[in-house]
């Protein structure tokens, strides 16, 4: 490595860091004040890119046209943020935080299809920045002038944000509301307007981050989830709520990525930020410049106690489900096989995020690793299909042992982000290890043995195994083990004060849930005959979250109902329309606004109200 190439990569990294910082600063600001983890923040960034592309086309490729387009795109995305806040989020500030998360997932789906309808599926490559496209020579190499300008933008925005927060009344209100928004309201401040303004600023920052990238990267439809993953990492590495920390982390990660590309380790770029995040969180659990969160004032109530499942209704449903292939056609049987796999996946996710109180943004890791383990044991190790199917969950469980050891050291949002990091590391290994996993093509020819090759036969086997998996998880919840988990969720201090090693229990729960997700994945792989990296992706993780939250995280059967409805709806909508994501997203939003306790919880509440006294 020569000194010149070192400097060039450093500058590349710093240029990339600016946009990363902008989007993370917006995410952090919104989270601080509203306590909403805005999963749609990457989508707002994506809108900024697309918006800038179209506005430049409309206003002309001149310096004036370009810069007006960038500013207008940022403001337009800010307004989109206002619409989201006013139309959706304002109605659910009193709902449990996880339900607000579900709403932002739905917004991701809607925005993706809005972008698809408006700009089409092709990548759009924007123009070079007019007037700044010439290279500037540094140490004998050319660097685009625009990149050097971007390096300046990051610190400038940091300084402006600091002034805004430290020197204005708005800034004092934002910082006060970050600590105690109820008190701010009792002092006469209209929280709704404050939240709307915060959303405007946060969204506009994301939009600006996206718009500024138009000369450097094409506008594509899968930016939403990749950018939100990056922004989560930056926010958490820097420390939630710390602008300076976000800047530091953006620089660290931007530069690390640039070095990976520049020095021939391009495969590492997908992993490096998550490795940094893992290391930072283990060493400094609240990020580089973050502080331990002040105990947030409880706004929601603690979840109601769970009732154990009633045997007879469960048995009746099982029999009913078992009978379906006798009357239904092949299509119904295949759909039901998907549903039982996802039901186990969702129940295993609910097991850690509901009763154990550890929200995972990366549960697909265990589902996908189970699926790949099954396929590899079968194809590469030559094991009989039955043995591969049954061993695969334990491979997923082994990964959960390692990942879980780190994760249970954290809590809340930090824990969720770390699970996302591990899932993303797993995904990039699967995606890039061509020799073993066949990379992006995935593995094919993963078919079950002859006696299971009929769709009904495989379905009955899946129903039996997933049923056993769910039974084990539910049984565990009503054993002393399950009571300890719930005690730890509701009051970690008191649980430890009576002599419980909470982390050990949480770790065990993590491993059990991971193993069960692995079982679901392995059954799923053999039912499809193939497996692709998407089974380990963020999208798969968020699907699981949507299933659990849709059904209702506070109920036992909610995840099963949520998995069934989500899988069925997605299948149905995908057949009817190209814009099934938007349709699904709008349905979820409707449910979120009408049933703030989730489907099962909401229906139970309705039943309680209308039941004859």
């Amino acid at each position, binding site marked *: 490595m020569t000194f010149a190439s070192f400097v060039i990569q450093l500058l590349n990294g710093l240029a990339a860091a600016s946009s990363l910082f902008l989007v993370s600063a917006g995410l952090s600001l919104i989270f601080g004040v509203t306590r909403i983890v805005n999963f749609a923040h990457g989508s707002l960034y994506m809108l900024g890119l697309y918006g800038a592309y179209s506005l430049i086309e409309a206003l002309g490729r001149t310096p004036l046209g370009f810069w007006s387009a960038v500013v207008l795109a940022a403001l337009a995305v800010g307004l989109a943020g206002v619409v989201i806040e006013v139309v959706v989020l304002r109605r659910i500030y009193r709902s449990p935080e996880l339900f607000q998360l579900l709403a932002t997932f739905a917004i991701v789906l809607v925005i993706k299809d809005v972008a698809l309808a408006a700009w089409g599926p092709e990548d759009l490559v924007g123009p070079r920045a007019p007037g700044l496209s010439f290279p500037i020579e540094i140490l004998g190499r050319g660097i685009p002038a625009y990149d050097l300008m971007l390096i300046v933008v990051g610190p400038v925005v940091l300084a402006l944000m600091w002034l805004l927060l430290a020197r204005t009344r708005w800034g004092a*209100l934002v*910082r*006060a509301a970050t600590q105690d928004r109820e008190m701010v*309201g*009792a002092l*006469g*401040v209209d929280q709704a307007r404050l939240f709307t303004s915060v959303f405007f600023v946060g969204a506009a920052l994301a939009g600006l981050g996206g718009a500024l990238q138009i000369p450097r990267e094409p506008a594509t439809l899968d930016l939403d989830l990749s950018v939100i993953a990056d922004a989560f990492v930056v926010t958490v590495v820097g420390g939630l709520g710390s602008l300076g920390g976000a800047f530091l982390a953006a620089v660290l990660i931007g530069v690390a990525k640039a070095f990976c590309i520049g020095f021939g380790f391009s495969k590492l770029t997908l992993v490096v930020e998550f490795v940094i995040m893992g290391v930072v969180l283990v060493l400094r659990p609240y990020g580089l410049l973050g502080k331990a969160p002040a105990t947030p004032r409880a706004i929601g109530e603690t979840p109601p106690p769970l009732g154990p499942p009633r045997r007879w209704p469960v048995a009746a449903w099982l029999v009913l489900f078992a009978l379906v292939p006798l009357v239904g056609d092949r299509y119904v049987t295949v759909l039901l096989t998907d549903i039982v796999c996802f039901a186990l996946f969702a129940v295993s996710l609910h097991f850690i995020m509901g009763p154990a109180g550890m929200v995972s943004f990366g549960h697909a890791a265990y589902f996908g690793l189970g699926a790949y383990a099954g396929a590899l044991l079968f194809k590469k190790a030559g094991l009989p299909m039955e043995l591969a199917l049954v061993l695969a969950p334990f491979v997923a469980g082994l990964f959960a042992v390692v990942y879980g050891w780190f994760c249970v050291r954290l809590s809340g949002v930090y824990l969720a982000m770390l699970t996302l990091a591990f899932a993303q590391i797993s995904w990039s290994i699967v995606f890039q290890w061509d020799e073993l996993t066949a990379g992006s093509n995935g593995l094919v020819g993963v078919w079950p043995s002859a006696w299971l090759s009929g769709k009904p036969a495989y379905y009955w086997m899946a129903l039996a195994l997933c049923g056993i998996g769910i039974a084990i998880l539910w049984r565990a919840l009503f054993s002393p083990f399950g009571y300890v988990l719930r005690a730890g969720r509701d009051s970690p201090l008191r649980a430890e004060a009576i002599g419980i090693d909470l982390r050990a229990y949480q770790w065990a729960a993590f491993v059990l849930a991971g193993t069960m997700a692995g079982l679901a994945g392995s059954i799923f792989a053999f039912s499809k005959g193939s497996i692709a990296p998407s089974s380990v992706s963020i999208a798969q993780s968020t699907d699981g979250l949507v299933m659990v939250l849709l059904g209702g995280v506070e109920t036992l059967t909610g995840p099963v109902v949520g998995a069934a409805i989500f899988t069925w709806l997605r299948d149905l909508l995908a057949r009817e329309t190209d814009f099934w994501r938007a349709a699904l997203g709008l349905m979820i939003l409707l449910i979120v606004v009408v049933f703030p306790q989730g489907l099962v919880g909401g229906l139970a509440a309705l039943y309680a109200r209308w039941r004859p006294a």
Partner: protein
Amino acid sequence: MLRVTDLHAFYGLAHILHGVSLEAKAGEVVALLGRNGAGKSTAIKAIMGLVPPARGEVTFAGARIDRLPPYRIARLGLGYVPEERRIFTELSVMENLEVGRQPARQGAPTWDEDKLFKLFPNLGRMRERPGGRMSGGEQQMLTIARTLMGNPKCVLLDEPSEGLAPIIVQEMAHSIRALKREGLSVLLCEQNLRFCEAIADRAYIIEKGQIRFGGTMAELAANTSLREQYLSV
């Protein structure tokens, strides 16, 4: 000024207030006395809209306020000083005051930083200090000052003497008398009877979510059995 009629309130499923009625007239200092868990704080929070009242009526300066969100109630001129102080610990003294700032209103004394620093001289000496690095007594002064920045007509004080050293309690009594001289109405809830005797015009006693006594401080002083039944520990 402030009239509460038959107020009921719940925390989750627990029925805390069982029909509380009380009144604070213009310029009056009224104490709501009771033991721990009697419902004092809940009554104050229900008036302020922080705990939604389930039944009953609250009128303030002639307007119904029992269905309004807290910020609307505050903007009508009803100030709230919470029990746990709830200072913004990351914000300086000046910034804490800024968050409380509301426009001047007719029929209520107008406050600004200088006037508040005359009332609480300690605060004036630590304008840039973050709220988190102040003593309990200083924080209690700052909470009151922060609420006064909203130029209220009436303030609700939730246990202002709690956890303070005796000398600070005396200062607090002095400050509350100063508020009365400015023409403010005050409703405060307290466990400290002597503190109330020093500042209040009238008192109510609350027990198990119901008002058991209402009258002047002199009437309360004359009634030993009442004090023993509801107030002594």
